[in-house]
């Protein structure tokens, strides 16, 4: 469990990091290292150069400006979890983070690192999709912005191109109440099924809804039909029944020793119902 040989650089600016990434084939950025370091130890990842992003100050921080919350990609998960402004602005992110790992992993793990790693069972990609986050990417040609739903492509696969770095996540103020629920083997493990639910009710009408499943397929699955029903029919008990009948159970492809596809399928409606009910019952007002 010793990594294959690699070179190591620790730049202090994004520009230098991009230069280094562009200069080597198989160069790879490293953020908090909570996934990449074990992959290096197992020799599942064999970069020729590790570009350590931990010493670039501009990549960390939480800032609210003009109704948009910008979270630097290198901001530690623990920082985000403890942030009052995040709690006010995007409670779903906090609710998701409560299910991510443990205090020691969150103290090191970063918000952007988890997104860029794109483990199909990770919580943060689902939360980003449910919050309609914008992923800010820096490359040699400058910055570009990608919607979260377009950023996450497959298992460990994102819209990031070689030589690019995820530099920040931008979140508009969360519309509606939310909940994040999951079933996992142990608290803090990746979910067997995760559900991010967000419902915005105004004057008895559902004006916005997001329902995102994780842990069931190559990437998080947005339940478009269920969201449409919520928006059309409102978050009534009858509508919720219709929502549960319209879940994309066919999307389940994950089938493993720890949980079969059938088990994941039967958990989905139960967790969705609970998540929607928990969101509606939550005291967090938008």
């Amino acid at each position: 469990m010793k990594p294959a040989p690699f070179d190591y650089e620790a730049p202090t600016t994004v520009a230098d990091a991009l230069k280094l990434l562009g200069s080597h084939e198989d160069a790879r950025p490293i953020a908090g290292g909570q996934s990449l370091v074990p992959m290096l130890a197992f020799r599942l990842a064999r970069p020729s150069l590790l570009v350590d992003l931990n010493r670039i100050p501009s990549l960390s921080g939480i800032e609210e400006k003009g109704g948009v919350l910008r979270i630097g990609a290198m901001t530690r998960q623990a920082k985000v979890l403890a942030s009052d402004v995040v709690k006010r602005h995007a409670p779903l992110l906090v609710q998701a983070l409560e299910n991510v790992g443990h205090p020691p992993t969150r103290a090191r793990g970063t918000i952007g690192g988890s997104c860029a790693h794109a483990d199909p069972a990770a919580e943060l990609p689902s939360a980003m999709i449910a919050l309609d986050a914008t992923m800010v990417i820096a490359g040699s040609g400058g910055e570009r912005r990608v919607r979260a739903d377009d950023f996450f492509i497959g298992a460990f696969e994102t819209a990031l191109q070689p030589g690019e770095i995820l530099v920040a996540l931008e979140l508009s103020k969360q519309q509606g109440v939310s909940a994040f629920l999951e079933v996992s083997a142990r608290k803090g493990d990746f979910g067997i099924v995760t559900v991010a639910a967000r419902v915005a009710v105004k004057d008895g009408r559902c004006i916005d809804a997001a329902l995102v499943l994780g842990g069931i397929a190559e990437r998080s699955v947005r339940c478009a039909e269920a969201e449409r029903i919520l928006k059309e029919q409102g978050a009534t008990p009858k509508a919720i029944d219709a929502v549960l009948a319209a879940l994309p159970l066919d999307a389940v492809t994950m089938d493993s020793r720890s949980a079969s596809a059938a088990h994941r399928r039967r958990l989905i409606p139960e967790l969705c119902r609970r998540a929607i009910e928990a969101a509606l019952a939550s005291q967090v007002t938008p």
Partner: protein
Amino acid sequence: MIGQRVLRVEDKRFLRGEGRYVADIALPFMREAYVLRSPQPHARIVSFDASAALALEGVDAVYTAADLPASLTPIPCRIPTHGDMTPFLQYPLARDVVRFVGEPIAVIVASSRALAEDAAELVAIEFEPLPVVADAKAALDPATPKMYPPGNIATQWGFDLGKVDDAFAQADIVVEKSFSIQRHSAMPLETRGLIASYDKARSYLEVWGPTKVPHTNRAMLARMLGMRDGDIRFAEPDVGGSFGARGEFYPEDIFIPYFAIKLGKPIRWIEDRQEHFASINHSRECTFQVKASATKDGRITAFDVVLVADLGAYIRTHGDVVPSHAAASFPGPYAIRNYRVAATAALSNKTPSGTLRAPGMFEANFAREQIVDMLAEKLGMDRAEIRRRNLIKPDEMPWYVGTQSVNRPTLFDSGDFPGLFEESVSRFGWSTPLPKGEGPVRRGRGIVALVEPSGFGPFESARIEIDPAGFATIFTGASNQGQGHETMLPQVAAEVLGIAHDRFRVRHGDTAMIPYGGGSYASRTAVMGANAVHRAALAVKAKALAAAAQMLQAKEDELALDDGKVIVAANPSRFVTLAHIARVLTPGNAELVPAPKDFIKDDHDGLTGEVFLRAIPSGTAVFSVHMADIALDTGTGELKVERYCVSGDVGRAINPMIVEGQLVGGVVQGIGGALLEELAYDEDGNLQTGSFADYLLPSSHEVPRIEALVVEKAKSISNDLGVKGCGEIGISGVAAVLANAIAHALGTGARPTKLPLTTERLLDLVEPGS
């Protein structure tokens, strides 16, 4: 001192990160080893080419079986077994065929571990795959190709006691069920490791890292290498856990020392976690088919059991001891005379098996205690009541079950089973109603009773030395993997000698300091180690009193020990300190032994005492009750253990805090075995578990506050201190009690019969047929 909750003296260094483990030791000119292991479950090695690896700068050698002595035997089985196991023994390095993923093929020695791993990638091995025996079921199928000329079954045996068929014919009720226990093992947080260094000119081989049974393993190494015992030193550093799996004579235990001799430089090998999963002895995997009968008033009349254990690819040092214990002890704490068991030890292309804390008992309890609940359910009887009616009574002690395991009779020397049972039930509040479940949550309560053997092993030794400053050193033949011996053994000696506890040091696990040692296993250190220390302390005391009587011009029976002094009881101002006595008894000192005029003679031999104690083969039996409340989410299959109480009658608790710690730690480990842990293989024999991301250990979230009830009702009648071992009762009943609580919560007759109890399996029980 005995009975006091003394804080563990060893914890200071562990908590400060000052422990010195084998990986903390380094020697000049030391090289690092990497063991190249088979990626194939069953294959012939067609070719092996290490030339590219050897060309790498910094690589010293790539050793294979061809580099070991041609006369080397396979690793012997050191425990009596049922029949001849020689056809199934493992050579330290694979010769022409590999039989499990993880079997050592070669050893790469280099200037660093990372470089050795780089070199390993350059070794080219061509395999010709052979048919795989995936599990015991396949092993038992006559159509499956044979792994060995005699076949895929290592051995079969059984017992047929009383009149089982008559009991079933006459029974009012009969129940029947099959149970399966998954393969899992010990996960000490410190993996194994060895450093071997050879002084060729003096013919002295030193090995750091061996633990559990260093003397036994040193003798095995000496025999296999044709060396003298006295030319080998095994030294135990601090050890981060064993749980039964760390004392086998593993392949590495021979080839690391041998290659250090061959290379002429010290070699360090530190097992990494990935190889630990494939190379530590696996354990537990077995199935029970159980049939039981009872009268309508709840008297259990017979057990009929078919036990099949999957021991993996080879028989190693522990032979078939795990299913052997399970078969011998299946009837548990109940007075049952009609018992039949047919046991099979099967072989498969998986890592070989050995012991894990409560070997065979965790498994047997899981099956038996569910069957007892099934009898109660069928009779409409309270589940505590059926146990109450069948427990062995104090006046029936000693109780001989009628079986043997590894040539030892299954014998319970003493016990007040009903006494502890009633105390446990009342303490827990067995009859108080469970809180109602909210929404989809259903609550359940479980109870199990069990008996664990303790104190096995032929002998133990202890030596106590008091130095001329009045400090005491205990040399124990018990080894230490974190259990608390450095605190507990001085408590025993302090009780006898009246020396303050903190004036003791304990030395252990070093064959250069300790001529004979039994080691630590089978919950034996309190039973054998502490009793040896107790008698050694008595020997020191006798010596001190004899010397003091001369020094004080008093009779021995007028003297007493008090706070590091020998006093004249009637006049405490007349005294000599133990330090003074130790100075007087120093060899060469003229006091009491004047120099001879014309012929040499025996001298003082210090204020010391040395004892060797022989054990009772059947050990001493410990009774325990486990009770738990659980909440099962019937919508998700999630299980929460809400309350857990474990009790044990340990005869006498030398340090109640350490005993409670053993019980609580055992329960935590048992929760892992019941709910989470599995060394999983696919049907082609590939190990699926390679890290703690997929081998799940319990965390603080999965573990409730555990109440430990330690009582001293029935002292052991077979040792001076009256102690019984406490290391294994904590884990032994966990799967059983959680299963019974889950079945109670379900209330449908459905039962968890397959471990581990994942959310998926639990939800299957809620929704049968889904």
